């Protein structure tokens, strides 16, 4: 019986192709919009998470100031000193590596090429903390770090722009008027927190301090937490230690801040998730409007096809069969619309994802929910017109012109 009804529904739909298409347009657009938005949103979330996790897992970043934007005016909070690094190494438990950083921007010159980049003064712990491997060459020797030798390890972006096809290891180049020898090249890391991590020249911190910044200040300290320890516990004791060392009174605000990379990741992905949900909700409203469109056309269709209904009833269709016919017609229409919508969403997502530089992630659940939702729209908005058709009196229906 159901097979028969579905056959009838398909016949009726195919008999009025244009009308059927226009009826389902609302569903098609609604489903396509919702699924595209959610798919791209998921891709964006994944992209953000990917970028941030490339900064390194379980790393605490210690910076002067009260966090992003450094609230209020007042004097600039002091940078850290080498003694702070030693204190963290010696007094904190659960720490795998501690790397001080002093940064400056600089232009590197090699033969005809020049490239402006960031010089990162640090120690070998920097690579250990971030678990960042070398592609070729070697790390700093302890005596090179101690003496602040003019040696450097370069990121892949710098290698490409400065040395092109030449193997840079062992080559000398000039940076901020100083000659420097390349001893290693880092593996590619890609985008991390909205900047190219590979665009860097890493040098011993003592060299950077002596030749470039002119003081012994440290602008950031990376603290890598041992996997066996809770990051939050280590963060708490790090904050306590720094309050003591920077002599901050009870009740006063910290003049430094500690970022947990995982926490940043969670915050950012949370934001993109909320955005995705809002956009999806707006798109879902268009789905609802699409459902009302189906009801509208089905109601018109019932009036237009009154004679047909009369013929069916006269031939011996019972009311429930007419009801089923119209209901199934509405459901088939909305399901077809849903399928077309899913297909369009697939094409749109595959096309747009690369433009947004986010990965395309096919989410089975979202597609399934959107499809079931469009079927449900067929049931809900098809029921009222169907019941109206089934309640018609056969004689009146036959006489209808």
């Amino acid at each position: 019986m159901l097979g028969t009804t579905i056959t009838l529904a398909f016949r009726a739909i195919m008999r009025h192709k244009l009308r059927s298409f226009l009826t389902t347009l609302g569903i098609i657009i609604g489903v396509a919009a919702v699924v595209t938005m959610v798919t791209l949103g998921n891709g964006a979330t994944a992209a953000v998470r990917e970028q941030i996790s490339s900064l390194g897992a379980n790393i605490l970043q210690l910076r002067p100031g009260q966090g992003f934007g450094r609230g209020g005016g007042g004097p600039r909070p002091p940078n850290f000193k080498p003694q702070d690094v030693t204190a963290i190494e010696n007094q904190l438990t659960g720490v795998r590596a501690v790397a001080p950083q002093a940064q400056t921007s600089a232009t590197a010159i090699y033969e005809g090429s020049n490239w402006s980049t960031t010089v990162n003064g640090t120690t070998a712990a920097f690579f250990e903390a971030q678990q960042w491997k070398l592609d070729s060459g070697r790390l700093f020797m302890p005596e090179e770090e101690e003496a602040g030798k003019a040696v450097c390890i370069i990121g892949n972006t710098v290698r490409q722009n400065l040395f092109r096809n030449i193997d840079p290891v062992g080559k000398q180049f000039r940076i901020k008027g100083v000659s420097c020898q390349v001893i290693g090249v880092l593996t590619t890391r890609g985008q991390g927190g909205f900047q190219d991590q590979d665009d860097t020249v890493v040098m011993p911190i003592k060299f950077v301090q002596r030749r470039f910044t002119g003081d012994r200040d440290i602008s950031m300290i990376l603290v890598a937490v041992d996997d066996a320890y809770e990051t939050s516990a280590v963060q708490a004791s790090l904050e306590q230690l720094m309050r003591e060392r920077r002599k901050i009174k009870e009740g006063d605000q910290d003049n430094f801040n500690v970022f947990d990379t995982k926490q940043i990741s969670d915050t950012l992905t949370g934001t993109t998730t909320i955005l995705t949900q809002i956009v999806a909700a707006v798109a879902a409203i268009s789905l609802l409007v699409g459902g009302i469109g189906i009801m509208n056309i089905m109601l018109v269709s019932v009036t237009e096809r009154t004679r047909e209904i009369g013929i069916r009833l006269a031939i011996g269709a019972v009311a429930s069969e007419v009801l089923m016919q119209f209901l199934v017609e509405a459901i088939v229409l909305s399901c077809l619309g849903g399928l077309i919508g899913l297909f369009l969403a697939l094409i749109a997502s595959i096309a747009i994802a690369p433009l947004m530089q986010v990965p395309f992630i096919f989410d089975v659940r979202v597609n399934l929910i959107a499809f079931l939702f469009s079927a449900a729209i067929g049931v809900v908005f098809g029921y009222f017109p169907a019941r109206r058709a089934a309640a018609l009196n056969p004689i009146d229906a036959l006489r209808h012109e």
Partner: protein
Amino acid sequence: MPTDPIISLRGVTKVYGSGPTAFQALKGVDLDIARGDFVAVMGPSGSGKSTTMNILGCLDVPSAGSFLFKGHHVETLDRDQRALLRRKYLGFVFQGFNLLSRTTALENVELPLLYRGEDRKTRQEQGMAALDKVGLKPWWDHTPAELSGGQQQRVAIARAIVTQPDVLLADEPTGNLDSERSVEIMELLTDLNKNSGITVLMVTHEPEMAAFARTIVTFKDGLVEGIRKGEGN
């Protein structure tokens, strides 16, 4: 000729509307239709012929009186039970053909079989057989718009007889056709009556068409005025 009545009306009345606008279309109709008969129903416009046909066709119920079909009381049945009765035992032909538009002749003829739950193969076989009976087998894939009035009416007859009903009801089946096409339809109905054993009831205004029937019932003012033998045999 068999005399066992397949249809029996007793004191059937029909009132349309209610209150001051109420109109009594049938005022107590008594009528027996013998199994296998070919009956022509005649009478002036508004005399209640279509009203009676609708009741006989189980499309409508009498306001009072009894309607026995094959010995069963129909006036007590509900909507769906009457629909099942129509599906099983009755075939309809209307003045306006009433075919589904944009639907092929075969699909139109198959429709009652669909509601009976027949499978695709049976539907096609029986549908084609019915079309063959009315001489339209070669036109099976034409839609009503591609058929003449006479052909459309023959498709409608094929649809009415595809389920091999006991009774075929036709309300002015030749009302929209010229006399040549009308005679063809009457010959078809006569053939179905004689060779397929279908009881035929037909409303007509034309004495030439009524001449094909074996029994002629005349209505006047919502009552049966007279019953006489026709020229058919």
